């Protein structure tokens, strides 16, 4: 499924809708896109959609930013600095892998095979000043979420 996003505001709204579509189960979402494409903006919308009121910082500096919203645990990763998947150890990733946690992963290819397989892969591409966001479900849960996202514009 593809969605055209003209402005940052729509990207935030899309993130919030994605959060709704994921429901109450855990989810692993890979985010692909060039620097400045809007990956962190989508995540910001996602977190706000779940009710997070504070700032959302890019995790470039810390590799992972954990959020606790109600009973839910959301981890926003930026794996750009990793030299290889085995370096996921350095984030203490074993401690994060729990049922019902949500993983939002930028530069997931740096953690290939060490990370659990994604439910959804999101590709954000430049289209002039606009963005094209493509959702590719990879699991049954992912497919359901994307279907719900599509039916609820």
């Amino acid at each position, binding site marked *: 499924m593809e969605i055209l996003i003209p402005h940052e505001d729509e990207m935030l709204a899309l993130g919030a809708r994605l959060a709704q579509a994921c429901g109450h189960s855990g989810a692993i979402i890979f985010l692909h896109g060039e620097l400045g494409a809007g990956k962190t903006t989508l995540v910001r919308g996602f977190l706000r959609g779940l009710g997070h009121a504070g700032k959302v910082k890019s995790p470039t500096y810390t590799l992972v930013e954990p959020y606790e919203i109600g009973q839910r645990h959301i981890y926003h990763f930026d794996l750009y600095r990793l*030299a*290889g998947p*085995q*370096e*996921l*150890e*350095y984030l*203490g*990733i*074993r*401690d994060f*892998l*729990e049922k019902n946690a949500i993983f939002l992963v930028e530069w997931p290819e740096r953690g290939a095979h*060490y990370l659990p397989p994604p439910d959804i892969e999101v590709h954000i591409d430049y289209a002039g000043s606009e963005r094209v966001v493509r959702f590719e479900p990879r699991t049954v849960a992912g497919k359901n979420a994307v279907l719900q996202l599509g039916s609820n514009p």
Partner: protein
Amino acid sequence: MKLLAIDTSTEACSAALLISGEVRERHEIAPREHARLILPMLESLLAEAGLKLSQLDALAFGCGPGGFTGVRIATGVIQGLAFGADLPVAPVSSLAALAQGTYRETGAQQILSAIDARISEVYWGAYRAGDAGHVTLEGDETVCAPQHVPLPVGADWFGAGSGWAAYETALQTRLGGAAYTCDGQRYPRAYDVALLGAGIYQRGLAVSAEQVLPVYLRDEVAWKKSR
């Protein structure tokens, strides 16, 4: 002897007080709640026995392997208590505590301890019941994929721990029938950390506060070589 023990290396959180061979325990399955629970558990155990920290002979803790954060919470707490109350510390393997509890409750003589290490791996150790009713390690503890665990000698092993819940099929395939049964719902408990810790203390192997450190089995020294 009087000894206070804790274990926060897995989803379980527990504390125990051993007084002359008798053990009292607090135990909860409470993922991510260790920091909130552990000191109040210790306080209630001491209050119940009418003891102060300074009246103890030693402390013991599950030093890992297990969740990095949980193991560090236990380490930090024991560092603070040992430094503050000037007490010696017996570090106890979480895998050994898991095996000891299995032996204590089921009578199984040979135990294969496996704690889910995530990322398709287990923390692994083979234990046998030995003298003085304490389990002892056969070979080495390790972290590896379930299909690569070291094969134990002989048959009639009892599988225990969350590693069995997560990877029973892979482990049974690897072991080819060496484990006759398993229980994936077992966790390391402070009760058994106390029992094994008392043995370590009595053998003169307790350490000082500054020497209290976690055992990760996943060492950063090895990670760095990969870069």
